């Protein structure tokens, strides 16, 4: 089995994000970037499946500017085998990314595609679902557990009602939730090895997909500053305020 893992370069989760003065997006120049945390979980799970002997190869995929190779390299330093980088400076919507991932997975013959359930920058929570639809594959979204079984995968999904246990057929697409695993450290020996692992650079044309945007960003603004809270002395006062002042109960 081959596993394709999609990894996205995003602003480091510890950085306070700033909106550009012209409201066209957020500031990314000279800002520390990192792998999207949900993608890290995806890489970790792929490596665990490989270590359990259920996969021969873990391939990382990323699309975007040249610097995306750093993100791929981080995943290679965690232990993945090789990388695919689609070089483009275009703005990419989930549909465009999904088309590229689907095409790459087809080319590579990947039986399992693992993605983060969402990226912490755009929060779309769409890409994995679109990939599954485009490829007409079984989908397991928000998984907190996955195991290879005959003919497919046994998964656990985190849903509002609790945990849903499913069996899905292979080939499949899954998206990771926070509690799936705790990603490993990129160890020093693996960081050294990662330098020599291959990253194939592709163009959008190599994948033969249309990445044109269907949406247009009109403006990006900061969320309004939160109003200061009020301290109440007891539960009675709280209920009274909720009922009569906030009128929410």
């Amino acid at each position, binding site marked *: 089995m081959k596993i394709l893992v999609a990894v996205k370069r995003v602003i480091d989760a510890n950085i306070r994000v700033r909106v550009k003065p012209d409201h066209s997006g957020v500031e990314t120049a000279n800002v520390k970037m990192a792998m999207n945390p949900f993608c890290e979980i995806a890489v970790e799970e792929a490596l665990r499946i490989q270590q359990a002997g259920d996969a021969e190869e873990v391939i990382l995929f990323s699309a975007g500017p040249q610097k995306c190779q*750093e993100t791929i390299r*981080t995943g290679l*330093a965690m232990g993945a085998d090789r990388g695919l980088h689609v070089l483009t400076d275009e703005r990419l919507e989930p549909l465009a990314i999904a088309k590229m991932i689907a095409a790459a997975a087809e080319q590579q013959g990947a039986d399992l595609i693992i993605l983060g359930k969402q990226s912490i920058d755009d929060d779309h929570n769409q890409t994995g679902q679109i990939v599954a639809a485009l490829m007409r594959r079984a989908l397991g979204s928000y998984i907190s557990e996955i195991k290879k079984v005959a003919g497919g995968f046994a998964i656990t999904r985190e849903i509002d009602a609790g945990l849903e246990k499913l069996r899905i057929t292979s080939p499949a697409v899954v998206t990771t939730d926070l509690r799936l695993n705790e990603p490993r*450290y*990129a*160890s*020093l*020996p693996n*960081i050294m090895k990662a330098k020599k692992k291959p990253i194939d650079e592709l163009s959008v044309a190599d994948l033969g997909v249309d990445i044109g945007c269907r949406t247009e960003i009109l403006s990006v603004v900061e969320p309004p500053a939160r109003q200061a809270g009020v301290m109440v002395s007891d539960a009675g006062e709280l209920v009274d305020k909720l009922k009569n002042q906030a009128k929410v109960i």
Partner: protein
Amino acid sequence: MNFAITEAQQMLVDTAKRFVAEELYPYEPEVEKTDALPERLRRQIIARAKEVGLYAANMPAELGGGGLDTLSMCLLDRELGRANMALQYTVGRPSNILLACVEAQREKYLYPCIRGEKVDCIAMSEPGAGSDVRSMACTATAKDDDFVINGNKHFISHADIADFVILFAATGVEQSARGARKKITAFLIDKATQGFNVRAGYASVSHRGYHNCILEFDRCKVSSAQVLGEVHQGFAVANQWLGNTRLQVAAICLGRCDRAYELACEYAATRKQFNQTIGKFQGVAFKLADMALKRRAAELLTYQAAWQEDHGGMSDMEAAMAKLAASEALAFIADEALQIHGGMGLMADLPLERIWRDARVERIWEGSSEIQRLIISRAILRPLENR
């Protein structure tokens, strides 16, 4: 000039940052409060550091170490330096001088240190011999194929947990251009050797959980196979291998600067007095500017010296400037960060009071600030003399 670090170095920094946050920070309160590092915790940190490949990262890869160059080691030491001394020391970086070990010495000392099975310590200082280390009174007298050692060492860091000591002792006197001077030899001495005793040192303002010790040698007999390097060539061995220790001090100082500086920036941007954040007062803002300036200057001097070391060798002056700049930047930054925090800065609830206390030793050990200035000024003036 390109001052950017490589992709691999950035990954090393990211791994080290996470290691410090997850494997060291959680234990800081306990170690600070009890002034002790429990053995089970020490073992746990060593095991985790080995898993991540950070243990003995300074040692050559072909010997089982991490194989990092000097600049990468500085980046790693900087991240480790953020944490409490006892905890960060446990992420072992065996003394480079152990690379002078030959044959059986390698099996007995070097390799076990790289594997995290043994810990070394270095003993030069004595009550009567500090900066003027060559004036040491501890002697090793040759007798048949053995040496008999007599004398005391003090201020010896972590000798309590070390398995053996790299001891420097006087083995004779020679004539030099500037008069008679002692000949020094380095020895590898196991803790259990008869006539060698380690006892608790002084209570210190710095370094909770990481202790200095007093070493006593009374007719302690060791075989000549325990000589590290050549007889009478102790300082030659030390000079060859211990120059980097000044960069290590500089890098650790930078890590502490980072932590104090980050806390200070955050506090200045959020603490309100007189209806505004205190960072809006120029008196506070300018402190941050000076802190940033000194930190950056120390960083550049340290990285430049390290880079030089990796590209043909740094000079004594470069190492001295890095150590001096970083230890003095830390003194300034720790103090100003504390000042910005007001009374809260003095309280053990924040790591600041610890960083402030620990900062003091950095201007004293590994060559005091005065000795570093001596080295720098000599390098300036020597070419101008005797023309």
